């Protein structure tokens, strides 16, 4: 088992864990954490791709590594926007949940 294989399996495990959390946790902040777990799992997959691509005197392929750095920044920005939305939601006194509310208005939609 080389480090890259271990890291690959680790990445897959993190994706799986994250998916589970993302599907099931009712709280949006927990979902966000889960999303970040999936994200780091994906970056690990990039990471082993970079590691496997060691060649020509380099111990890694620099292109995927550059992509990871870009990806981490983007993921962070996404988390920040999501956190801002969650905080704002709780500030306006709304139950913080993602599932649709029970419609308050009766549905008048009686098709022709």
């Amino acid at each position, binding site marked *: *088992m080389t*480090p*890259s*294989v*271990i*890291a690959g*399996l680790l990445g*897959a495990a*993190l994706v*799986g*864990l*994250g998916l*589970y*959390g993302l*599907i*099931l*946790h*009712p*709280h949006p*902040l*927990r979902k966000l*954490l889960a999303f*970040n777990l999936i994200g*780091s799992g994906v970056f690990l*997959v990039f*990471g*082993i791709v*970079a*590691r*496997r*691509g*060691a060649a*020509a*005197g*380099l*111990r*890694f*392929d*620099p*292109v995927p*590594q*550059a*992509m*990871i*750095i870009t990806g*981490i*920044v*983007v993921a*962070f*920005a996404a*988390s*920040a926007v999501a*956190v*801002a939305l969650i*905080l*704002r939601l*709780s500030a306006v006194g*709304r*139950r*913080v949940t993602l599932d649709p509310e029970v419609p308050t208005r009766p549905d008048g939609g009686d098709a022709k």
Partner: protein
Amino acid sequence: MSLLPYLDICLALLVVAVAFWTIAARDLFASVVGYVAYGLLLAFVWIRLYAPDVALTEAAVGGGVTGVLLITAGKRLGGLRNVGQGERPGFGLSLVAGVLAAAVAGALCAVILMLPDPPPSLAPEAVAAIHGAGAGLGNPITAVLMSYRSFDTMLEKMVLILAVVGVWSVGADNAWGGAPAPFRVSKPDAPMVFLAQMLAPVGVLIGIHIFWVGADEPGGAFQGGALLAAMWMVTMMAGVAQPPRVDARWLRVALVAGPAVFLVIGLAGGVVAGSFFAYPPALAKPIILFIEAFMVLSIAAALPMLVAGSPGERPDR
């Protein structure tokens, strides 16, 4: 052979365990803390993958700034009553979700083990390009980020600006123009102030150093900028510095400086070097450093603003 493979396996198991804790913890705050620890552990994995640049980024962002962001948010949400805790998912759904997640992870494992051998790689091209007429930088990652995939990098900085605007946009209408508030502490702690005053200058120096050496060694604009950002956040937490108003002109200029300079130089490349985003070979390194300097500024301004949140929110008690 050596102990290293066992260490790797232990590290991986530890990471999985912490990740599991993050998902499974009952308490929101506990899981946030778990996530911060997870970010730091992951940095070690990156080092084992010979990815020091990524390790630095992961430590600074994954562990550091994201940690502050989530802990602040977790603290504020933890005290609130209106967080849906009652709606635990049913057993059937948990089972389905578990099976599906396991299936996806399993498929992914299989596919990762199936990746072709010998692996395709752009490392030779990158090395050749660095030594050739390309960027003339010692750190191939910086070369890729700033030269070959400069377009991605510029877009990523645009994403940061948009994220800042997005974070600001959720504020209340009448608060617009004010400063974001969550860092403001009513009575600054003496040790915190001391720490900020001592740490900040050192941190700033280290940050600038990381950016400067990034041209040839691990490090670069993002890692350096992230450290500067952390220092600014520390000073704001300590009350030594005040968060700026969102309509402050200098803040806006600092935020856009990186992409703006990048864009102007990219355009100028069309005239001077014959192609947009091309650098004259002799001047490639100085130009890249010049752009990166502004990038550092933008990143140092953007990250704290992302953590600080929208203007005018009152801190909870």
